């Protein structure tokens, strides 16, 4: 009895020893030489594997960054400048800092503003819905509300508000990975600079219809009146196809366009004080008078 146990232990230990030696030499022979910096970079990265950088995951990003001549095409939107500083340090590069970004929804067609004119009972997917028809409201440009963006967000930063049927973005959780931008068949989500202390202006509409048509479809639509375009003194507003767009690199956050917008389709976010429309309008009027005198 004792003998059997003893023999078993001996045979298995001997086998283990022999195999260990074989494996040791095989591992030596077939060793894959890998840049140790890849591991270091991967450790520094957030590890979300979201694909926001354009690579298949954090490891793919790291191995590509090691081989790259500079960091121009490598930026981890999730980690932002802090992580990229570490990556640059590992690789010995100078870091070009990027302004932090956040996703914004360029549609303000909530349920009450945008009446439903038909019902859709197909598969609840924005892409399917968009491929079938223009949607259950009269606006052929607005949010379809099926939540493809919510599904695409790996960080739980997007949720469809059941009251408005529009997605809401949690700024704290949004990493600007851009997954929602790709998921939206109407490209309503856009990555914009977060702005100084989180202040930013944007046009929350992409309706290209003419004023009366857009207005009929949605009370909050940009009607293409061009008022913001004429008001802006910084040349930050691009006005074409009956809809305005604010170029965030030129916007000085004076909020004049927001005050002049007749439909409220220009949104100001993160400002400490609510906008005093009348005061701003008065300021614009005075400036115009002075200009007329001169």
């Amino acid at each position, binding site marked *: 009895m004792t003998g059997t146990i003893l023999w078993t232990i001996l045979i298995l230990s001997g086998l283990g020893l022999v195999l260990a030696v074989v494996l040791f030499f095989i591992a030596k022979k077939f060793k894959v030489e890998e840049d140790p910096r890849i591991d270091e970079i991967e450790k520094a990265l957030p590890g979300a594997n979201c694909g926001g950088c354009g690579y298949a995951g954090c490891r793919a990003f790291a191995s590509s960054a090691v081989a790259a001549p500079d960091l121009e095409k490598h930026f981890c939107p999730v980690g932002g400048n802090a992580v990229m500083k570490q990556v640059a340090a590992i690789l010995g590069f100078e870091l070009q800092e990027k302004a932090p970004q956040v996703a914004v929804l360029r549609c303000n067609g909530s349920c009450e503003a945008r009446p439903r004119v*038909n019902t859709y*009972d*197909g*598969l609840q*997917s924005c*892409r*399917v819905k968009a*491929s*079938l*028809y*223009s*949607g259950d409201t*009269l606006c*052929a440009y607005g949010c379809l509300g099926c939540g493809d963006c919510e599904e695409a967000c790996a960080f739980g930063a997007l949720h469809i508000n059941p009251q408005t049927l529009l997605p809401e973005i949690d700024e704290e959780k949004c990493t600007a990975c851009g997954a929602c931008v790709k998921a939206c068949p109407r490209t309503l989500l856009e990555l914009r600079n977060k702005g100084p202390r989180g202040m930013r202006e944007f046009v929350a509409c992409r309706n290209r219809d003419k004023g009366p048509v857009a207005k009929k479809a949605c009370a909050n639509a940009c009607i293409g009146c061009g008022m913001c375009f004429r008001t802006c003194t910084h040349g930050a507003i691009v006005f074409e196809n009956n809809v305005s767009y604010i170029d965030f690199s030129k916007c000085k956050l004076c909020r004049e366009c927001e005050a002049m917008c007749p439909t409220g389709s220009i949104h100001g976010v993160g400002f400490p004080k609510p906008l005093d429309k009348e005061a701003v309008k008065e300021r614009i009027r005075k400036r115009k008078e002075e200009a007329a005198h001169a």
Partner: protein
Amino acid sequence: MPKITFPIGGVHPHDSKFAADRPIEVLPLPPVAYVSMAQHLGAPAKPVVAVGDAVKVGQVIAEPGGFISAFVHSPVSGTVKSIAPRKDLAGNMVPHIEIAVEGDEWAEGIDLSDTLVTAIPDDPAAIIEKIKACGIVGLGGATFPTHVKLAPPPGKKAECLILNGTECEPYLTSDYRIMLERPKEILIGAALMQKALGGCRAVVGIEENKPEAVKVMRAAIAELGLPQIEVAVLKKKYPQGGEKQLIAAVMRREVKSGALPIDAGAVVQNVGTSLAVYEAVQKNKPLITNVLTVTGKMLPAERQHNYLYRIGMPLSFIIEQAGGVPEGAVKLVSGGPMMGKAIANPDAATVKGSSSVLYLGAEDTVRKEATACIRCGRCADACPMGLEPFLLNRLCKAGDLEALEANAMQDCIECGCCIYSCPANIPLLDRFRIAKGQVIGAIRARAAAQKQ
């Protein structure tokens, strides 16, 4: 003669041909016509008239915008009011020419008499040229330009012209009515297309639920003395009218994955197209009218209609002429209940391929909640292309394009048999349409990359 059909799959929805006994009525002219520039498969047409121009019926108002494209003619006489995007059936913006109707003055050279012209021109090229000039497109649903189909690529020869008179979609009766009322014109149209294809036999495929049409067509063949044309009686099964299914039924040949019907030696044309070809070649009349069915389960017999409409008439005008939307209708469909498109915008204008205004009640259209797949395999039994929808559905969810291609997602004909037969109400086709587009896109991108 034994009844024939395609070998695999198919479903048997109730045929609901309520408007079958209603003769074709001519609709009055609308006050305004909106002529879409994207009425055919392929590149949109380019307008050749300007705002303010006076146009006559049958005058060219837009020319083809590419190789696969078609001429568009004015369906009414009057003044061009605007050339601007307008919402189509699905609510998407499409360029339209708006024409205010004044009188009904036809362009010169169009023969409006009823006399049957039986003499077939000798030159095949002239026939195809005439078909192209008259803007004829396939009226079976896909609106593929007919002149392209009638000119097979070099090295390929048509052995059989199949006229599609199956009308396998429930409710629709427009093809049935033209077969009853204008059989000789359809057959001469077929003879013209046979000539254009360089001579081949022709078969008119008609489903067994239209015995009258079979009788009338056979009598017309005998009367006209056309030995090259025969009538094949097909079993009633949906989607018999699908191009590949019809070829399988009539010729016992399978069109390979990725191949065209011409590779199997077949050209399929709808009976409506054949009628349009007759009118174009023999009467010089462009494609500006078509027949459409207004029907629904809830409509009494006297409100079921088959209308001859002018292309560009708003659907709302037709609905009004037919007595308005009936009570109990929750969904309006243009086309049949299986493959038709929901009318999201009733103000949309009719196009060359409009075949019906169909009213569906809640019991026929509102979807039930989807439950889990129980792997019963009914979808695979029903699929006329021999695909496995339950598997494709899982692959769609996973977004596995390679596996989708390996399982022939690109062969889906979007007939809806899978979704019709699914006991778990799973929205199979909804996903397939998207996935099919993606797979075909990937195949094309690969082919383009290989060319370079």
